[in-house]
């Protein structure tokens, strides 16, 4: 099964590059404790998913690069070319001379429809190279102009053109103190529109990743590249081949489908968050050892206390003893993070010995789903990206409630005073559309609050 990746805007292209780079370096890294045969199959499955092989053996990504400015795309293409391990399909890119000026409406209403045919044609060419199209993976920022506006428009086009394919949108949540004044508008418009056409939204928060870089990776001057590398590492840890069931004899060829099947079957709940452990600089990695029990204990507490990294976890949060007794209201501080569904992915040595019972605790989940329905485990003995052991948790839970509520609140305040709204109406997003967007997001907030 193959996935066509669509990189949108500056952020999408940069993250996409790091993502493919990590996949490839992982393929060529030492397999750790897996057998040669297993490692070969691991490589085959990964290649089939994200690359097609040229006759000379070069790996070419199944990707389409889109940006309104030429700079980032051309830089991305040349960086990949220099890597020597993989490259982009040079013809599979689209760029223009002028950007969207951080205006979502400009991307969605103007640039999107204008360039729709060309971009969809590029997508179709990639699709035709797949024997089996599993779905699409789009990478974009939520707050900008090209990525978010045009990305949202193209997601809709993908849904229309490929109604039976899976659609996963990777969105980068902006810094709380972002530089773009209208980032809250852009964000809510992106989210509400994606919610209509996408199957699942995989969210990375820039603030969190930044903290990971500074506190866990010990990076002094954090660049975009550092942040993107962490995101790419987390993405790779989901999509690299795994065994998706206890009895499975082969690596799963359809991780995108299985991921969605276990996490986002319900149409009202499709926000996914990621946590992974351990995460550290390469330097300290060499001097560290881990055991599964410790890692999973941390990961579980990160989940229930809604901590997004292993530093600074609140260890006092416990699952409620009676799940339905008292409903916490949204505006109160959310202490315990209730999940709709969780997927744990373990990679590395002695993975058979890891016990996941802590994740099968009924109070962790909504009363309408049993842990058997709500929790899924994937694993492989093959180490990922130089980590001897690593665990990733993809979670459909209340983790985004607070940031979402924040962003909606800020946007609403701006909207109430009609600030900057004219910049959107002039491209065709009227106030009615804004109101609809607010309704959609309030509905999502309500759904997640009343789990």
């Amino acid at each position: 099964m193959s996935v066509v990746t669509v990189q949108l805007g500056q952020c999408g292209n940069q993250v996409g590059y790091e993502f493919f780079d990590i996949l490839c370096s992982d393929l060529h890294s030492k397999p750790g404790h897996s057998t040669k045969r297993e490692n070969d199959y691991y490589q085959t499955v990964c290649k089939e998913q994200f690359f097609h092989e040229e006759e000379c053996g070069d790996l070419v990504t199944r990707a389409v690069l889109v940006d309104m400015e030429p700079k980032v795309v051309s830089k991305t293409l040349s960086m990949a070319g220099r890597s020597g391990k993989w490259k982009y399909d040079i013809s599979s890119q689209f760029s223009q001379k002028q950007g969207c000026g951080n205006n979502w409406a400009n991307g969605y209403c103007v640039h999107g429809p204008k360039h729709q045919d060309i971009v969809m044609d590029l997508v179709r060419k990639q699709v035709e190279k797949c024997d089996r199209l599993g779905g699409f993976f789009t990478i974009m920022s939520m707050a900008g102009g090209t990525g978010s506006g045009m990305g949202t428009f193209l997601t809709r086009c993908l849904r229309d053109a490929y109604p039976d394919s899976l659609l996963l949108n990777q969105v980068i949540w902006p810094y709380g103190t972002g530089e773009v004044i209208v980032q809250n508008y852009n964000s809510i418009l992106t989210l509400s529109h994606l919610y209509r056409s996408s199957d699942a939204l995989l969210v990375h928060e820039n603030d969190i990743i930044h903290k990971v870089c500074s506190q866990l990776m010990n990076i002094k001057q954090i660049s975009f590249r550092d942040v993107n590398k962490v995101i790419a590492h987390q993405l790779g840890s989901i999509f690299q081949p795994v065994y998706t069931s206890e009895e499975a004899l082969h690596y799963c060829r359809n991780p995108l489908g299985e991921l969605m099947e276990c996490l986002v079957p319900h149409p009202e709940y499709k926000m996914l968050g990621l946590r992974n452990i351990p995460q550290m600089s390469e330097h300290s990695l060499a001097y560290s050892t881990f055991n599964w029990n410790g890692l999973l204990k941390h990961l579980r507490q990160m989940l229930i206390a809604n901590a997004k990294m292993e530093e600074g976890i609140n260890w006092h949060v416990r699952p409620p003893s009676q799940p339905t007794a008292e409903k916490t209201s949204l505006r109160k501080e959310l202490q315990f993070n209730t999940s709709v569904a969780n997927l744990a992915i373990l990679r590395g040595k002695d993975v058979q010995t890891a016990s996941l019972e802590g994740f099968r605790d009924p109070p962790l989940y909504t009363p309408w789903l049993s842990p058997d329905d709500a929790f899924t485990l994937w694993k492989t003995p093959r180490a990922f990206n130089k980590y001897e052991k690593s665990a990733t948790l993809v979670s459909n839970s209340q983790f985004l409630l607070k940031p979402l509520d924040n962003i909606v609140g800020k946007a609403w305040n701006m909207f109430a005073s009609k600030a900057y709204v004219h910049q959107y109406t002039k491209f065709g997003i009227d106030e009615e559309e804004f109101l609809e967007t607010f309704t959609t997001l309030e509905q999502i907030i309500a759904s997640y609050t009343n789990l």
Partner: protein
Amino acid sequence: MKRGGSSQLKEVLCALCRLVSACGVGLNPETFRRAKFDRPETVAEFWNLLYCLLTKIYQVRYGASVTIDETENLGNRISYVKTVLRHQGYGRSAFYQLPLDGSQGSRELLLSFSWLLLQMKPLERILQMNRAAVGDEISVCTCSCKLDLKENQDSKSLVGREVDVRYLQWLNGKLRFCWRTLHAVHQEKCCLLHKIHLYTQGCHVDQSVSHLSVLETDLVRHPDNYTKVLESENTNLEAYVQWKHLEPVYWQWMVSVLESTYENEQVLSMQDQDHKRYETSQWSNNLKHDIDKLNGDLEGISRNLQELLQRRQSSWNEQIKEIEKNVTEKEQRLMFKKIKQEVQKNTEDVKSQNAQARDMHGPFRLVFREGSGTQNASVNKNFYTRAFYATELSKELQKACTELEAEFQRLQDECRCKLEKISEEFEGVICIPPAKG
């Protein structure tokens, strides 16, 4: 002679058991012998045998895969077998009187099995079913089946139990994802099939096919993988040949079984003659009543038909006379010719439609035709009947699809109306329709 006969009998029974085992029922020749003496311990085995054979036969006939439900209890199996045999016209009343707990009647079962052997040709069907399919096949059915969209039986069991609607939505979503995955897998299969057919153009000895099938291609690459498949097919065929060779022995033996039934029956009938007589007389009374009723109906209908015919004929005659008055002879001839052509065309249309409807059913071999002048290149070829183009089939399926979609739409609207009506009863409550998905 006697000895030779019995060893031959054993041989033929062995062959029979081997043939039957291909449909998943392990049977011992000894079971047959025991059944002859009406021993109760073989009863369950025979019911299972009949059940498996019949389900398999129906599977072949309707193309759909029927999985044998292992958990189905014996009582249900027995009534299934009885129903099917009655439907097929098996007439021994003693068979239908066998108890549902499977406690007795192995000789009756042996007889019914033998009848089935002749009537429905299960052995030949099993052979057909288990043969290694050389060509790439698809199974098609465009027969219109009545949609049964009545209340799902399961929904009744949910009444009274509290189920969160979100859980149902969750399950529904899961189903959708599975369906989409299945869709992708099918597309992949088609794509790979096309590649194989395209790359092996001209490799086949059969000019009408001209390309290799998946199995043939695999056979070329890994011949060893198939020795097992072919060996098992060989064994089946050998067993069949042996069976055919010694079949008369089996039927001779069956005569002796039948005779022993008579002996038994005589004893039996002495015991409960009255009961039986009463039952048969009642049964024949019923039958007589039915026959009378049917006869009456038939007479009525044929009378109606006669009348209708006469009326039509007289009206036609009048019309013809009128036309004749108006039309000269020359015109008449022309018109006759025209009408004749039209009729011919119509009958041909009807015939082809009929044939098509009949043909688009069952297993078909997929044959790829490159640049055959028509738009599509793939041809489906039934083993015994005419071939048709894939586009014809997809058009047919498209039609069925639109019909189903319209039906679905209608049902959805109906539900929406119901919901609206319900929500109107709540005052001051606004219902927001759920997110699409």
